[in-house]
């Protein structure tokens, strides 16, 4: 008899426990409804790619020495380096360079090993095409610079979660001009130059003081 009662009470407890869990779940779902959507409304809004983002590869024809290191480090020997040996100058003469981005896996090995830094990774990721052959970029296409998300007037750039300042959870909450975490290289350069000039002027003041002291 007691065993049966215990069974009944256990069963009831279990049922109420299940109901309680269900209610807790409902509370969680309900709480989510007052949170702001995290949707990024692409093409009107775009996330700013992180630094060191491995997008489409940029190539500078004039820097290239046709050494073919990029071909050797590529997992599938993808870059096509079309050069001829100029017998008179005894130098390689580069004619064409191409990478097929329909095949490229964007591992960045070529960029890593290029001895003259003529290869670099861009932030471009919108490589959709109607024909896969149009993804085979020649040196002209490779030399084009992509439109940056932050400079495109038709796009609202948004920071990724890890680039938001402390306490901010939604990139929409940031003011309009706070588009990028950190500084652009140009801004860093400006800062360095400013610092250098202030140090220079300080030193000149110091030296003039010294001169003054010497005079005394």
């Amino acid at each position, binding site marked *: 008899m007691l065993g049966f009662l215990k069974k009944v009470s256990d069963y009831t407890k279990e049922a109420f426990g299940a109901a309680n869990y269900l209610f807790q*779940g*409902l509370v*969680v779902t*309900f709480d*989510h409804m007052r949170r702001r*959507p995290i*949707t990024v409304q692409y093409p009107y809004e775009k996330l700013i790619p992180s630094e060191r983002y491995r997008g489409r590869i940029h190539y500078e024809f004039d820097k290239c020495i046709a050494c073919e290191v990029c071909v050797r480090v590529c997992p599938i020997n993808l870059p096509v380096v079309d050069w001829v040996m100029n017998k008179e100058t005894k130098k390689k003469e580069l004619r064409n360079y191409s990478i097929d981005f329909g095949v490229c896996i964007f591992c960045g090995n070529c960029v890593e090993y290029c001895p003259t830094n003529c290869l670099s990774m861009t932030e471009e990721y919108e490589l959709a095409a109607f024909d896969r052959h149009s993804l085979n970029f020649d040196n002209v296409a490779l030399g084009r610079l992509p439109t940056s998300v932050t400079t495109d007037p038709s796009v609202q750039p948004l920071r990724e979660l890890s680039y938001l300042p402390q306490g901010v959870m939604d990139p929409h909450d940031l003011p309009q001009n706070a588009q990028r975490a950190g500084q652009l290289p140009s801004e860093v350069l400006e800062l360095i130059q400013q610092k250098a000039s202030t140090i220079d002027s300080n030193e000149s003041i110091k030296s003039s003081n010294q001169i003054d002291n010497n005079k005394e």
Partner: protein
Amino acid sequence: MSMVTPLGTASQVLTTPGIDLELSFNQAMQGLGLSSEVAHLIWLPLPMLLVLVAAVIGVLVTVWLERKISAAAQQRIGPEYAGALGVLQPMADGLKLLVKEDVIPARADGLLFTLGPVLVLVPVILSWLIVPFGQNLLISNVGIGIFLWIALSSIQPIGLLMSGYASNNKYSLLGGLRAAAQSISYEIPLALSVLAIVMMSNSLSTVDIVEQQNGAGLLSWNVWRQPVGFLIFWICALAECERLPFDLPEAEEELVAGYQTEYAGMKFALFYLGSYINLVLSALLVSVLYLGGWGFPIPIEWLASWVGQSIDAPFIQVIAGSIGIVMTVIKAYVLVFIAILLRWTTPRVRIDQLLDLGWKFLLPISLVNLLVTASLKLAFPIAFGG
């Protein structure tokens, strides 16, 4: 039915001098020189059309709510571009389904395949017959009321099984069988919990059930006297509608889309419409059976006497009628909201868990609930409608 209807309306006209639109319409038509019978014939389709339109609008609103609330629960935005806040999105969906190709698979049984969705939708729409939005605001105050709904909802699994079998597809067949098993299992606790209510109100008529709840406003709602019945009814209603914790018949991860797999275009739209009309209908019936139907939390009669007006004054009647409609719809939509929230909270149960819950948990509990209600009715006839 034909016997009950005139008697029912006549007695109500005698007892409560509320709004009787039919009578006024009839008199207006007679004023135009038509006989009473012709006027009645002209009147007949009007409430039906009105309820059909109301049901379809209710579905459109529910679909929009479902998409918006789902989006909110998942921190998305949801439909946004079709109309303000995407309110026209369900219309766009419907329009798209309307112009899509109507495919009947080559090896399917054409007749049953076409008949299936119809057989699913028609009983659901027919059940709106008994949903009251006010004292006289229902198509027909059928004496067997709520029983009619239970009877009609048993037709649905036949349609589901039919469409599942006629599709000649293993997923469809499995979905159809599951739908039939689920509907049949959950109909019994559903009927038993309704029976407890019927026992307390001494009537199967939905109007009487609501009337009996509106003595003291919020406090006299059935949900306080039938909390267990309320929960059982709501769980069973969700199972009958194939809403998410119980959406096994169309479980997309295992059965593609269940019995809907082979359907496209307007036939699929019929299933879609049917499931949402059924959801709204279930929510309406929960509000009718347990949440006081058209009743305001404070009885309108009290409010009218506080303002110093007679409840029979024409404009008070109009206001009371409007409040009644609004209250019914609000209660129903709160329940729809809970159903949507449940959809994103609860994981789908397995078929054995589903049948376990139905037969081994809900059925015994609803039986106990019925017995307890019966004994309480004998012990406290004042509180439990003796």
